[in-house]
């Protein structure tokens, strides 16, 4: 089971910044590392882009994290009118609330989990994911195993994440095959009704916004 429960927005325990890369080209063939360097150097020399452009792009990508999605979810739980707007048209609702620019990014739809209906998101063909809000997808989301199996045996795949849904709940497996990206609005866990919006943000995990996990109230 991933460390997702303990650190809602980060993948790991430990003192280091989980967003800082650990080491250079870990697990990458020397040819690949060389090819990356050759392409980068040549493209910079030819003014296709600059080293500054690359740095700024890296910063932009790193600035998008599951915490942004968690803020949207907590706000939707606390504000029924915002939730309605979010479900009707996600992009403007998210842009307006977070103050981030989603122009030129793929379309977004937020799908709501209810006691009767549970969504789980995937991209069987590649790795389409709501990066513009949630950041980089987890490795397992991009894996052949997840992509192949979640559309065929969703309950078995969810069980591998430690998630078991009650029998009557409908599972909707959402394959992101085109220009639409999906974020799950997880069910607010019972027993959290009196928490503040800020406290609720800390409950929302990346995996619950993909749909492989359900949220539970924090133990006191």
């Amino acid at each position, binding site marked *: 089971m991933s460390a997702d429960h303990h650190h809602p927005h980060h993948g790991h325990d430990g003192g280091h910044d989980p967003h800082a890369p650990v080491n250079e080209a870990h697990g990458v063939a020397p040819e690949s590392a060389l090819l990356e360097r050759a392409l980068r150097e040549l493209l910079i020399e030819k003014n296709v882009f600059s080293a500054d452009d690359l740095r700024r792009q890296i910063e932009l990508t790193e600035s998008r994290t599951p915490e942004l999605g968690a803020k949207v979810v907590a706000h939707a739980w606390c504000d029924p009118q915002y939730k309605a707007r979010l479900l009707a048209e996600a992009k403007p609702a998210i842009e307006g609330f977070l103050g981030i620019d989603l122009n030129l990014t793929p379309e977004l*739809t937020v799908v709501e989990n209810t006691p009767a209906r549970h969504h789980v998101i995937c991209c069987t063909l590649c790795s389409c994911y709501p990066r513009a809000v949630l950041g980089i997808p987890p490795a397992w989301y991009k894996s052949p195993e997840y992509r192949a199996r979640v559309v065929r045996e969703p309950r078995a795949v969810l069980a591998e994440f430690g998630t078991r849904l009650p029998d009557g709940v409908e599972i909707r497996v959402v394959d992101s*095959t*085109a220009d*639409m990206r999906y974020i799950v609005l997880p069910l607010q866990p019972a027993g959290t009704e009196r928490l503040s919006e800020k406290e609720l943000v800390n409950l929302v995990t990346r995996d619950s916004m993909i749909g492989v996990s359900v949220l539970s109230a924090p133990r006191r």
Partner: protein
Amino acid sequence: MKAVFSPGDKVKVRAAEVATHCRTPHYLRGKRGVVTRVFGAYPNPEQLAYHRLGVPYQPLYQIEFDYQEVWGRSEHATVITADIFQHWLERDR
């Protein structure tokens, strides 16, 4: 290109085979489903993939498929949805 389907319409994914870039997954070819959402029209990715303009834009739909229809055996309360471009869909009566 005009959107010809509406939510609730029964459709069937064309059973065509293509060797070029395509966003209609194999496991849904020839399968019957229902339109659940109508998204706008988008440039055709099959063209964009080869540096072409992708015109005419194709309307995009979210289609809901019953598990049994897709995999041939029943599985309680499970549906699969996928976003399919209009030119891959036929009306299913």
